[in-house]
């Protein structure tokens, strides 16, 4: 293992690799994150949105997939907690040079880090990173598997606009099969007592839904009248070449939130999307700009939620707070 000095770290969780890391009672764990998030939302509204809670800690972004938005969100969160940040943006050429995943992690370890935020195209990489590192590992999206901070900010956004998720009816629409956002959201929403329905053609559902606490339907129109949240997943254009859908046109006709469909939903149904959107495919351009589309709030809440997660994993136990003069 590395020779880095032992880092003082306290906090209930060791990693956030998936929703199940929030504890034996995932719902309670999510509530704890959301309570912390409330405080950090307040911090972010200050003139100097910064607290010294993680001063002296180092947070590294290890992003194997391009994602400026998520990476900036994490880095902003870390900086607002006064942590130092490093970016390991592993370009495809460096990967092609053959440096192994383990060597990359051990190189970072050698520099002494407290947290590694990992995004990778392969499911399971954050768990592997956690095996080779003493740092706290946060999954910023691994393959098709999970994207826990996205699910947390989605829970927060729903609660912000519509109150408690208990009993709320959520439709997750689109390419569930390939979606790490969907897997984390199913776990998160159901842990908080929401009723989740997956709406997708069979080719875009996972091969087995055994053990998934969800309903399934191929009929989006039938669900529109009985949901509180319509959560749209991005439809990747590549799926056509894999013979998963005949065409984007047919996808939109069956599963897109068109203007006509949005009109048939109650005006207070929340319209959500993890971004980036394909306007005109899974969501009509003007629908994304409607007042009940809270996509921008999702992004905005992301920073505060990630501050809460970092604080939860790295917080030294001292009270955060106070201005950083």
């Amino acid at each position, binding site marked *: 293992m590395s020779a880095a000095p032992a880092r003082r770290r306290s906090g209930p969780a060791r990693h956030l690799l998936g929703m199940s890391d929030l504890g034996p009672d995932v719902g309670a764990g999510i509530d704890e994150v959301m309570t912390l998030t409330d405080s950090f939302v307040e911090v972010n509204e200050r003139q100097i949105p910064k607290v010294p809670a993680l001063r002296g800690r180092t947070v590294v972004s290890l992003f194997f997939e391009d994602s400026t938005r998520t990476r900036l969100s994490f880095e902003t969160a870390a900086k607002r907690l006064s942590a130092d940040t490093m970016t390991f943006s592993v370009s495809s050429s460096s990967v092609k040079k053959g440096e192994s*995943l*383990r060597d990359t992690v051990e190189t970072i370890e050698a520099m002494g880090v407290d947290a590694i935020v990992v995004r*990778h195209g392969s*499911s399971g990489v954050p768990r*592997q990173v956690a095996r080779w590192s003493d740092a706290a590992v946060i999954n910023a999206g691994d393959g098709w*598997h999970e994207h826990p901070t996205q699910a947390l900010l989605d829970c927060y956004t729903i609660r912000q606009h519509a109150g408690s998720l208990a009993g709320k009816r959520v439709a997750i629409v689109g390419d569930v099969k390939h979606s790490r956002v969907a897997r984390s959201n199913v776990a998160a929403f159901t842990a908080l007592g929401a009723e989740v329905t997956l709406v997708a053609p069979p080719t875009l559902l*996972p091969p087995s839904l055994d053990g998934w606490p969800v309903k399934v339907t191929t009929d989006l129109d039938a669900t529109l009248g009985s949901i509180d949240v319509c959560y749209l997943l991005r439809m990747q254009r590549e799926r056509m070449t894999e013979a998963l859908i005949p065409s984007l046109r047919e996808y939109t006709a069956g599963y897109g939130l068109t203007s006509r469909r949005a009109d048939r939903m109650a005006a207070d149904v929340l319209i959500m999307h993890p971004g980036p959107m394909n306007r005109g495919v899974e969501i009509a351009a003007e629908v994304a700009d409607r007042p009940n589309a809270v996509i921008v709030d999702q992004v905005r809440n992301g920073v505060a939620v990630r501050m809460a997660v970092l604080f939860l994993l790295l917080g030294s136990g001292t009270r955060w707070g106070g201005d950083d003069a």
Partner: protein
Amino acid sequence: MTVPAETTPTSPGYLLRGGRVIDRSGERVADVAVAADGTVAAVGSDLDLAVLGLADADVLDCAGCVVAPGLVDLHTHMREPGAEEAETVESGSRAAALGGYTAVVAMPNTTPAIDSAGVVSQVLDAGVAAGLCDVRVAGSITVGRSGEALSPMAEMAALGVEIFTDDGCGVQNDRLMRRALEYASGLDVTLAQHCEVEALSEGGHMHEGEWSSRLGIPGIPAEAEELMVFRDIALSRLTGSRVHFQHLSTAGSVELVRAAKARGLAVTAEATPHHFTLTHAEVASYDPLFKVNPPLRTDADVAAVKAGLADGTIDAIATDHAPHPQEAKEAPFDEAACGMLGLETALALGISELVEPGVVDLAGLLALMSWNPAGIARLDGVHGGPIAAGAPAHLVVFDPEHEWVVDPSELASLSHNTPYKDRRVRGKVRHTLLGGEPTVRDGKATR
């Protein structure tokens, strides 16, 4: 016939004393005397060594042990030529000997592939030079294993190759497989198939099902294997040729083979220890040590493989010993190499997972690991026993009660990719004799 290169003409012979002899003719408490010429001199109690000319025989203690014909592995990856950092014929032979094997069939997915007399000779010679195991060679069905043109099977058969396979891949083209079977029947050799329809398996890295859906890993459905099993059974019927099915992993495959045998078709089958021991639930750790092709499957599939081993549907246990260097198993799961070590843990897993729970008895396990595979490899009369005067002394002595914990760093393979680290198992090889000389003595390789 391989005799270890350093046999001394003045070998004193050996007396295997105090063991329980089990071979296909039955079970008896008996000593086994091994002559200097590498054959069994006598089997019985109170042997008169002087009369046998073995008064100075070296005594090998077999108390508490079973003495059986050496194990035969139909499916070992030696990695030589081409990937010697993972394993060589020598290191693989040592691992085989420590696992109780006196014969292995080396798979042809080397670099270059074993698709010509030259490469066959290279591997055979390396086996003789190592002198730790009788290394036989499987040739590929197609040139370069590319699935396009038949390889020169006759020239390889002339060097003693009895089994041909494109293992690592299945032959995708139906017409080509038909021609290969017809041609093979003219040579009286056996085609073995790694059953995988790539149109269904492409992009998959684990069994497609409950766990792949949860873990977000593209899956390989059982049908990718079963479709090719079905096809080759049909082609076997069409051509009248023998087919041997490698590493069966699904309940559906076992059922197809059972039905084919019931119809009298000339098909045989093997299964690996990992397919009767582990399931896809292991992949939850995302540890590529559990990545293998065909993948670990469901509990029901494991149960079906065990039932197939018990009722004769599956004729043999074959290890599919697949060494890989450390970096190939430390990559992200979907980029990691497929395969696990198997030679040194197979017997113990057979005892722990099959004999102890009563799926088969010890004689049944030895049939699966010794004389049945010897028959499929056309090594009858050389390997697989019976243990009787005049027979070649290819023997294994093992303690079926000896408990041990698997430690990857203590395995003789050059690689360490075993999924059984820290697993407590029962059954350990004490001595292995190849051609009358120990390759393993008191649990340690002799060279």
